[in-house]
């Protein structure tokens, strides 16, 4: 199969190195990002790297798709500097406040406009939200298969043989293309931006789309179109406690395990 477009979904997120400076707006329950530098979500960089490698091997075009405020243009420019062929930013005030479902819907509407495509690559989750929900939701909206926690991809004809990480070990999944694959960091080491990549980025196509461009139903996007409601955001209180069990080993272990069950550890 000739690889056509590879779409890589990226998100601009606060730099994890600066997480200690992040505050939560007590009223709106949102992250206060002012003064926090932004980066491309680290796993999205792995997804982009994989797309570039697939392009090098099988051909095709790498199109980066992001949704965010105008500042996210910087992330798109950076993706172009890494080697993506085109970048599209979905940027519209109507999209503000979208939860994962509304985001996946909006992305799917944009992707419909990019057909035909062979592959959609995403980071498995982002460092800010960490839900890992967007890739599967995106696949559902598009009606195509998806695999999460992907650490290896081989393309054979119109299928991908994918290694998907599990808690212990990994499974091998054969998936029909096009598909959404959500990658983990083990898949590759993203390249470092090169000077020539940076200067070539300015001559590449960087497009901004608004909601009307993707013909999205406005009832399904933004805060209004999001079924998720954040009722509170707080730092969980971790209470340390210590209990000492004494006696013969077997009996003591049994006691300790019983106690751990009682307090709900497992």
């Amino acid at each position: 199969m000739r690889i056509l477009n590879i779409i890589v979904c990226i998100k601009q997120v606060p730099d994890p190195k600066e997480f200690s400076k992040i505050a939560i707006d007590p009223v709106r329950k949102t992250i206060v990002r002012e003064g926090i530098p932004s980066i491309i979500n680290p796993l999205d960089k792995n997804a982009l790297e994989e797309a570039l490698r697939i392009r090098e091997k099988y051909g095709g075009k790498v199109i980066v798709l992001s949704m965010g405020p105008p500042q996210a243009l910087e992330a798109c420019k950076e993706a172009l500097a890494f080697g993506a062929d085109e970048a599209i930013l979905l940027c519209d005030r109507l999209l503000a406040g979208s939860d994962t479902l509304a985001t996946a819907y909006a992305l799917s509407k944009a992707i419909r406009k990019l057909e035909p495509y062979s592959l959609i690559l995403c980071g498995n989750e982002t460092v800010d939200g960490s839900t890992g929900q967007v890739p599967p939701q995106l696949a559902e909206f598009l009606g195509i298969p998806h695999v999460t926690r992907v650490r290896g991809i081989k393309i054979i004809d119109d299928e991908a043989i994918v290694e998907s990480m599990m808690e212990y070990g990994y499974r091998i999944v054969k998936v029909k293309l096009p598909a959404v694959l959500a990658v983990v960091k083990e898949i590759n080491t993203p390249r470092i931006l090169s000077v020539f990549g940076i200067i070539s980025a300015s001559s590449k196509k960087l497009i901004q789309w608004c909601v009307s461009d993707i013909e999205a139903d406005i009832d399904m996007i933004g805060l209004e179109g999001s079924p998720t409601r954040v009722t509170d955001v707080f730092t969980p209180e971790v209470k340390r406690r210590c209990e000492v069990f004494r006696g013969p080993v077997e009996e003591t272990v049994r006691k300790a395990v019983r106690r751990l069950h009682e307090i709900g550890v497992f």
Partner: protein
Amino acid sequence: MPFDFTFTSEQEMLRKAAMEFAEKEVAPKVEWMDETGETPIELVKKMMELGFGAIVIPREYGGAGLGHIARIAVLEEISRISPALSFCLQIVHLGQAPLIYFGSEEQKKKWLPGMAKGELISTCAVTEPTGGSDVLGIQTTAKREGDSYILNGRKCFITNVHISNMHGVLAKTGEGPKGLSFFMIEPNTPGVKPGRKENKDGLRGLNTGELILENVRVPKENMIGSEGDGLRIALTAISNIGRPGVNGVALGIIRRCLEEAAKYSKQRILYGKPISELQAIQWYLTEIYLDYETTRLLTYYAAWLRDKGARCDAENAAGKYYSVEAAVRCAHKLIQIFGAYGVMREIIPQRLLRDAEVLCSAAGTQEIMKLVMFRKALEYAK
């Protein structure tokens, strides 16, 4: 050009790329470099592959043409992790400078694309045992013989000499200030021999050594400019590229001092509280911070002037003088903050001090910087 203190998105991407390269690839080698004094050739190659060697080469000759602000941003980020490797890169740029500023169209087309790709790395060999600050004291000669010049002499303290395949050489073709000329010696030219490797106290892992020239035949086409232009070429290259390059390296050292000082003073507990709560330590931190901000302003201001095409010899000299003095005193203060730990070989403060000290004589001594600034100061007589 508006007075703007923000990086363009290209400059910011470049800064981040340099930071990532330094933190991921350079950092694991720093201790080995300091211990052995060996140059990490593979890192130099990687820097060239990433295009850091092409930053100031104009785009029409295969370079990136990103300018001096971008260059300083890269040097600062690499120096924050390894001042030695940052200095290596700044001399790669210095080796290109005579060509960029004075090369003929033919010479630029011949060598600059290879330099941009990192296939050609040139030294800028000026200093000799008898001539450093007193440039006219050099003894290397270039005697005309038909369509060539025959070069003989011995250069010293030449950065990158053992890892370069080209050499830019200042040599005597006559007497006095107009008796110096500048030549590019191409790879594999017979008679060119790198000599002894210097065992420096700081910037270990930065290659420094002698360049021996024995009856080296250089075609007259390889002369930059005309006979007698050598002094102007060498001094312009050193002023426009060499000195701000030192500023960039010093800036990285000062920033590292600030980071290490802040981190350690928050962690180290004395009298039951972090030492950052002791006023003596607070003042050290304040002074290091002030030196960092002042050095940044001087360094980036001079780079901004260069990017505008303005002459900035005095500003570069001021930047070089201040940044190096500041790097030395900040590293010294960092040692005070660390106490006895500060002078232990396996902990960073003492290395930063050794690295900073090496910068004092690089690209012109501090006393020469004062002379350059003095000339500018006199211009204020109304």
